[in-house]
């Protein structure tokens, strides 16, 4: 058991894997070539079309212990992963790993198959019930939490081998050309699946919308696809792009947003060429609303918006606030529609978006990003994976990737949730290291990292409530009291990988 540079205890070995403790955001370098996949030759008369998922699973020659993957662009509307797990069970496969880009609440259907031993590992973060049950020790399933950039990296380096990738394709032809912008299950960008299409040993396109050759536009091309399967439905369209994306009405949330926008303005980054990322939550959108107002007032023309894209960003593109949107995931129908018709709304892969191990990702070009948190601590470390209950509940998404890449990473959060302070002595789990976080904005104060004395001076000049984070922590705990720490057992149920593959934290079983 060694401590990493953030003081977290990391074992030398976990489930047979030697662990590399996190040191800092920058120094770990790749020492391998890109992973490879077998080359194949197709005769013009060969057909890729298979009659069923079962046939595809058999063709992929899956054996016990292998990994499959799906993408999560269909979010809580996704049916594919559940279907695949049931088929694998029917085939008698055991000890399989899920290396999907994310696992959601809708996948609680696979819980019985985890109990049965069909699934024993999830090579990505997990949202919701499965993760919570694993945290409680009610379910045995090894979880490695990876960011979007970190997942792309792990496929490209070969650390995670995907034996068969099943790509839900809302629009697809018989050769496997596909896109996400047409069809009843349209989800927009297929950004997360690009990496699977290029690095998985076998690639299966699964569609509920088989169109005449060629499917256009081509997002993922026939040259990467081994088989094509048509099924009745990929998912529930109402839940595919159902994230409610509205500006918050909560007065505290609006105040946070106003402060965050003031911080951006005060940073001096808000000038022509400004690039920006924000999430789909109500407060994040309120920040975008304020940023839009400031851009209008100051005549600023931005360069690009990035990340998961909402209708809100689409409006900003169409109104000329940005020249380009880089879209790894669409959050609503307006974004899907925009990507279909606007060539400046670009679909990008998770690798291009956020991987630390390539020749430069889009995240590195970001001026400013707005991020959320379940907890932050006095060293600016941020937790988005676990909550104060200690349960693993949320996936990392691009959090630690864009924090590392952007010039200014701003975390927005209410100062307390219910009766718990959001600022802690130490976060329960480190998702994103404090070295890459610049500002924490709450409705009661703004805390700025020591890296930015000029920003502190400018915020003070503007009469904004800048506070030292330790004093602020005391101020909040005066109101809430000091919560009793959650008790954990020794057993490690999940690893939290930093984007570079080192281990930034581990998640232990909660002592009930």
């Amino acid at each position: 058991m060694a401590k990493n540079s953030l003081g977290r205890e990391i074992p030398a070995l976990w489930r047979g894997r030697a662990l590399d403790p996190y040191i800092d955001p920058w120094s770990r370098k790749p020492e391998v070539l890109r992973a490879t996949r077998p080359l194949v030759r197709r005769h013009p008369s060969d057909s890729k079309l298979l009659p069923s998922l079962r046939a595809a699973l058999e063709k992929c020659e899956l054996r016990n212990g292998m990994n499959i993957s799906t993408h999560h662009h269909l979010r809580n509307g996704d049916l594919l992963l559940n279907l695949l797990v049931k088929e694998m069970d029917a085939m008698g496969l055991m000890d399989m790993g899920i290396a999907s880009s994310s696992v959601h609440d809708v996948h609680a259907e696979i819980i019985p198959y985890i109990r049965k031993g069909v699934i024993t590992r999830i090579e990505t973060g997990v949202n919701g019930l499965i993760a919570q049950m694993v945290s409680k020790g009610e379910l045995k399933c090894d979880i490695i939490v990876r960011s979007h950039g970190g997942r792309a990296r792990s496929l490209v380096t070969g650390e995670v081998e995907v034996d068969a990738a099943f790509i839900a394709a809302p629009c697809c032809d018989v050769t496997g050309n596909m896109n996400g912008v047409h069809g009843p299950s349209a989800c927009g960008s297929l950004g997360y699946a690009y990496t699977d299409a290029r690095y998985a040993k076998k690639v299966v396109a699964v569609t509920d919308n088989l169109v005449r050759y060629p499917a256009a536009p081509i997002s993922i091309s026939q040259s990467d696809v081994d088989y094509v399967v048509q099924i009745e439905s990929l998912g529930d369209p109402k839940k595919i792009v159902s994230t409610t994306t509205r500006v918050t009405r909560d007065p505290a949330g609006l105040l946070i947003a106003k402060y965050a926008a003031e911080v951006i303005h005060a940073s001096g980054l808000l000038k022509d060429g400004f690039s920006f990322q924000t999430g789909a939550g109500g407060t994040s959108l309120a920040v975008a609303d304020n940023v839009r107002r400031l851009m209008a007032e100051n005549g600023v023309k931005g360069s690009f918006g990035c990340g998961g894209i909402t209708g809100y960003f689409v409006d900003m593109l169409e109104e000329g606030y940005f020249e380009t949107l880089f879209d790894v995931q669409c959050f609503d129908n307006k974004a899907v529609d925009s990507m279909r018709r606007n060539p400046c709304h670009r679909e990008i892969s998770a690798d291009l978006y956020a991987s630390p191990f390539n020749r430069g990702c889009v995240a590195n070009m970001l001026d400013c990003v707005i991020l959320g948190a379940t907890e932050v601590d006095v060293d600016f470390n941020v937790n988005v994976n676990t909550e104060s209950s200690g349960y693993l509940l949320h996936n990392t998404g691009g959090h630690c990737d864009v924090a590392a890449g952007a010039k200014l990473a701003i975390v927005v959060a209410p100062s307390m949730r219910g009766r718990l302070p959001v600022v802690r002595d130490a976060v329960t789990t480190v998702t994103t290291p404090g070295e890459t976080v610049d500002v924490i904005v709450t409705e009661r104060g703004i805390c700025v990292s020591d890296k930015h004395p000029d920003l502190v001076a400018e915020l003070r000049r503007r009469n904004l409530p800048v506070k030292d984070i330790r004093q602020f922590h005391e101020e909040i705990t005066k109101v809430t009291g000091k919560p009793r720490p959650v008790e954990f057992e020794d057993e490690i149920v999940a690893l939290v990988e930093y984007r570079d593959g080192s281990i930034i934290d581990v998640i232990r079983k909660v002592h009930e």
Partner: protein
Amino acid sequence: MRLRRSLLYVPGNMPGMLQNIPVFEADVVMIDLEDAVPLQEKDAARLLARNFLRSYTDRNKEMFVRINGLDTPYALDDLREILPALPDGIRLPKADNPEVVEKLDTLLTEQEEQLGLEIGHFKIIPSIESAQGVLNSVATAVSSPRLVALAFGAEDFTASMEIDRTKTGEELFSARTQIVWAAKAAGLQVIDTIFPDVNDMEALRTETALIKRLGFTGKSLVNPRQIEIIHEVFRPSAKEIEHALEVMDAIKRAREMGTGVISLKGRMVDAPVVTRAARVLKTAIAFGMIDFELTDEVIHGEK
């Protein structure tokens, strides 16, 4: 001049909302023990409000408490619990006549004596909420030296008038003007009623602009989201400030020439114009928008 543009009601029985009071930028917060609090929670609200006021020592705004009407069985308990926690003043509902205010004045004096405070420590903002209250407002405005403002409560007023309140508010026009006159004649600030639709920001802006034109100096409100718009409307515009400075400059030149009147861009500048300009500048100074030394001499000229 103490700015009282925005007077935010916060229900006394909601701890989650009380704890956010320091955060919002209202000039005044009024913890409500009256209409927002159901009967079975009156005592809980009293205790919560008292405890909050006690712990809120580093105050960044004026704190008033809206007690229950003096004609209810709750008002005396309200005062007994709340006053030792030292609010800045009391918002008195149903101030239908000067006697109600006088009665509160006496109760406050008693408490001040008990607490060892200077007499007059607690201020009063009476709320005019009925036809009778409007008619008596002239007398009410001079009923106690503790008064800092008159407030108008349109929800109860329209009920007493047996009419509906509209978004455009024509039905309130007469009452509003009467209350403004009463307040101005007594040298008080004057606070308009709440705007109930918290989602219609444009209508709030229109109404606030209207009451500002009528002479109101501030507005009560029910949701923190309304603060910013009210402040925006009450903030003098850059154009108004520029004009006021020009007026001051013009009258200075006039006085140097030995006259009290001068033309500025084709319009006459004389004493009332200067007084109005001085008011804009006073507000701008209070908002911290300009740095300007505004003395009596600048406004009225050398004697």
